[in-house]
């Protein structure tokens, strides 16, 4: 069987005809396998959904309890047979509950990695390599320019700035699922034990992380009552980047805007976003991790789903590995 008879890109997303399911479909389908809870991968309205316990919980938190017809949790490593097609979920190291999905039938095995990273992250299970014939990878940071530094070093920059500018509130832009909790956990690991103030839109997900055993320390709502501006001098406030253009952000004393994202590697991106303190902290693979993963797995073929496809395909070509871009539209990861 040719690989693209087992799995191919259809208008709604990657489709497996023998098992009659989609992976991370962009629109409602009868049966969906979901890699992780980021909104561009985990949409509401499917019939049956198969995902990890955490991913299902996160979908329920974000879309409400009726986000799909039936939800079936799956353990890491457990094999499920769908009309003769065997599927299993494996840790992707991206955010809490994130999984790669292995799909096998007639002697061919795919690994759909979803979003993944290989650097350590105390808020989720670490990435595990999955042997496969066809490796489907993202390429969000698929350019040789991307080298994510040690995240503790980045948190160090934040702590230095807090010392230098104790009168300014430090507003950290971090996507609400995964990045925000990772930044808070990193702060704690670097010895920061003062309260961290969070934007209202983060509270449910932070509570959920805590309920799954990830200690985030003293979290408090970042709400400004009349006259207490000064309470936030020198405070760390975490919120989604979208909230920073709003009045909410302008009410903090002398706000210093930091942004935790892999995009902060490029100075112009930071400058355009009005970011004063870029923190290069990413939940995706950087270029060395992407290329290392492909070398380690040594698949017969590589498919690139989203991101900087052309550069990674070029790299595979130079390494003698057949590769093609899938040009899947619709994945603009909220968590980069």
């Amino acid at each position: 069987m040719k690989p693209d008879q087992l799995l191919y890109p259809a208008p709604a997303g990657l489709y497996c005809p023998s098992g009659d399911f989609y992976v991370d479909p962009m629109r409602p389908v009868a049966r969906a396998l979901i890699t992780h809870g980021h909104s561009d991968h985990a949409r509401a309205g499917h019939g049956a959904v198969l995902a990890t316990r955490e991913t299902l919980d996160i979908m329920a938190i974000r879309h409400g309890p009726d986000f799909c017809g039936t939800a079936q949790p799956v353990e890491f490593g457990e094999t499920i047979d769908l009309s003769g097609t065997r599927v299993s979920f494996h840790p992707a190291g991206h955010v809490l509950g994130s999984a790669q999905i292995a799909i096998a039938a007639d002697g061919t095995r795919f690994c759909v990695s979803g979003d993944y990273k290989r650097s350590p992250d105390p808020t989720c299970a670490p990435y595990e390599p999955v042997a496969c014939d066809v490796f489907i990878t993202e390429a969000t940071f698929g350019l040789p320019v991307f080298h994510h530094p040690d995240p503790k070093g980045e948190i160090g920059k934040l702590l230095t700035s807090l010392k230098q500018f104790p009168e300014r509130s430090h507003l950290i832009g971090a996507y609400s699922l995964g990045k925000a909790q990772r930044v808070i956990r990193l702060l704690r690991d670097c010895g920061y034990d003062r309260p961290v103030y969070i934007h209202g839109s983060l509270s449910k997900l932070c509570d959920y992380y805590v309920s799954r055993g990830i200690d985030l320390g003293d979290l408090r709502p970042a709400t400004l009552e009349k006259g207490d501006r000064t309470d936030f001098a020198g405070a760390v406030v975490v919120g989604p980047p979208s909230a920073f253009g709003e009045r909410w952000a302008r009410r903090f004393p002398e706000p210093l805007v930091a942004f935790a994202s892999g995009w902060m590697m490029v100075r112009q991106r930071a400058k355009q976003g009005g970011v004063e303190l870029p923190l290069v902290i990413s939940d995706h693979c950087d270029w060395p991790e992407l290329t290392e993963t492909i070398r380690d797995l040594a698949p017969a073929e590589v498919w690139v789903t989203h991101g900087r496809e052309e550069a990674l395909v070029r790299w595979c070509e130079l390494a003698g590995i057949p590769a093609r871009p899938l040009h899947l539209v619709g994945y603009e990861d909220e968590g980069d």
Partner: protein
Amino acid sequence: MKAFAALLDRLVLTPSRNGKLKLLADYFRDTPDPDRGYGLAAIAGTLDLKSVKPALLRDLVLERMDEVLFRYSYDYVGDLAETIALVWDQERKERIDDDRQPRLSAVVTRMNALGRTEVRGAVRDLLDRLDPSARFAFIKLATGALRIGVSARLAKQALADFSGRDITEIETLWHGLEPPYEALFAWLEGRAERPVLATPAIFHSVMLANPVGEGDLDGLDPADFAAEWKWDGIRVQLSAAGSTRRLYSRSGDDISAAFPDIVEAMTFQGVIDGELLVGGTARSNSATRTFSDLQQRLNRKTVNARMLEDYPAFVRAYDILFDAEADVRPENFVTRRSRLAELVEAAPHDRFDLSPLVPFSSWGELERLRADPPDPVIEGVMIKRLDSAYQAGRLKGPWFKWKRDPYNVDAVLMYAQRGHGKRSSYYSDFTFGVWAQGPEDGPEGDMLVPVGKAYFGFTDAELEVLDRFVRNNTVERFGPVRAVRAEPEFGFVVEVAFEGINRSTRHKSGVAMRFPRIARLREDKLPRDADRLETLMALVEAKEAG
């Protein structure tokens, strides 16, 4: 290199002046010698580093990586230095330890010791041993493209903040010191005496005057001030110590080579301030000639005997900074002037005279004198407080300038466009601007705002100069229009004359000039010396009031 790179990364993204000052002061406090001194030099524009061509860097990166991948990366990042800094490691994963990276001082020393054939290997090795952020800083330094929106003045203010010393004290020493400024830091930290300058024949920052604005003289007692004519030459500083003699323009360029007649006549010891003119001195009873005669002598590397004879130069002395070795800047104007008179008296009478004082008893009387001066080469009057010390910079209060023709400003070239007809091969339509307060506070927040366009007034020879400047200093193109470099420390200053000025809602600056023309190229001035929008607004208000 790590600390310096981290500082640069923060400075470029920090908009507020106070934030920048804090970052700089902390860097000076926390970074050891000699690294901080080289960092200071890099920021203040005094660092001497062997330069590296972008083409070499490109070559080096392509030795190690696929050209297609490099192109994808460059297209994405958009800046060559940053692209190279980021792609250099490619798939290499191990991070470079902060404390194992070469220090800034080691990088500078190593680069400057290299022979021609060694540059390639050394740059490759340094790029290997620096992390991406330090690599970026190194490439920017070595290609001379470091632009971080921090002036030398702000760096000196940060030194003042970190040490508690007065900035004028630092300014005083500045031109006599060299990177890595260890003696300066030792003094700033109270570990050593104030550094003694090796030779006083260095350039000292000059004292500048503010234009008289509406109401500025109200309430000031004329008896507290002296007035002198403002002569239409170029402001110079003459330094003589031992056998070393130097003639500097007001921005500190050494122009001695073009004026051997002056240098030869510097028989005194010390540092004086004056106007460089062409013609004869008052002491030799001959006329002062016009600025266009002086221009024959400017911007030359050397000068021939014929030139010296046809366009003899002399200096009309205004002030004295050092009397032999004694620093007399703290003394008052009257005391300094008597020292100056003595010095000029002893100097060759055909090359030096003393700028005469203009007696007056009321501001009204001085205004009449200003409007109708006795010599056509006078462009106004200078007003100086009798008790004022000689202080570098443009302080408000001690000195004023009051020009004869108010419709005359120094502006900075901002944009140029090709002309029409016989001028179509030249950039001959110019947009110029003056300084205005931007959204940020303090002098760092200053920005240029365009105030007019001119396409005549200059000679063909001047057009050649302007055109060459535009071609060599284009930073951006918008169709037929080129934007040129216009920064406080680098750019082209022109004197713009105009027939009138009005308020305008159509212009972003809020003013519109009538018939502006480029009266003169001011290559002796730096853009930071150009006029401010407030000066133009004052002209408008004066006109409306009158």
